[in-house]
């Protein structure tokens, strides 16, 4: 149980997993084919940001409540952005009958 005992109380773990989520989200944004896949990867990215903020605020900050308030703001903004993205995706599908990113970037002009 040695390695498990140092895990929870350490900021490095939270920072690592936040960066892992960020990297996965970035990979998804570069390589997924549809708009909804892009949205899912974007959400992962924002989760990584939230965990990072919260970890830094809890371990290194003076005011722990401020960390929570700021994380709440990040959650709220990410939710608003997801809603707007979905509205756009539905409108795009209705007009062009496709949400594939390759085809959409060919419809120029």
């Amino acid at each position, binding site marked *: 149980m040695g390695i498990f005992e140092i895990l929870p*109380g350490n900021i490095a773990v939270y920072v690592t*997993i936040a960066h892992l989520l960020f990297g996965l989200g970035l990979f998804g944004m*570069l390589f997924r084919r549809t708009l909804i896949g892009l949205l899912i990867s974007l959400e992962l990215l924002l989760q990584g940001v939230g965990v990072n903020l919260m970890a830094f605020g809890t371990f*290194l900050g003076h005011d722990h409540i401020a960390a929570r308030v700021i994380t*709440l703001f990040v959650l709220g903004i990410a939710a608003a952005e*997801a809603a707007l993205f979905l509205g756009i995706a539905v409108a795009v599908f209705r007009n062009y009958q496709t949400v594939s990113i390759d085809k959409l970037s060919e419809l120029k002009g």
Partner: protein
Amino acid sequence: MDNFIFKVYYLSFAIVLAQTAAGGVLAVAAKNLIHCFLGMVVALIGVAGLYYHLGSPFIALMQVMIYVGAVCVAIAFGLSLTRKAGEEGLKPLTPIALIPVVLPAGMLAATLKGLSHLEKTGIPRKLDESAIGWHLLGKYLFPFEIISVLLTMAVIGAVSVALIRRREQNGNI
């Protein structure tokens, strides 16, 4: 009994970490978009567990309510409205795939190096979280109001973008 509680605590933390990582990998690498969606839900619940372990059950529950309750269901609706047969999956891997590996690894190395002399440890304790409300209406009032304006704009924008204009469809404008 006390030692057993700590073993359960560490095991639960390991499960939460594994769940977040596995959910994230599934969300990005799956072919079928519904499997991606499932992976995202698992990862989001894992992140809620991480918030709980960081000492804030309130933020963990807010995460579950906002994300898994509302955003995931909205994404599910969007998913079912915009699906088309041959379009899902990953693009073939090119050397650009090194960017999402190198960039976060570099950032992580820089962060850990910067933290190495400041490292504080200790299991975060739970606080009295009613102070969040006081902060939202006191010190952070301005961001709070701006975010409510932002949310209103997002709702109005989403509705107006996705609205079906009935009059145009019937032909009598």
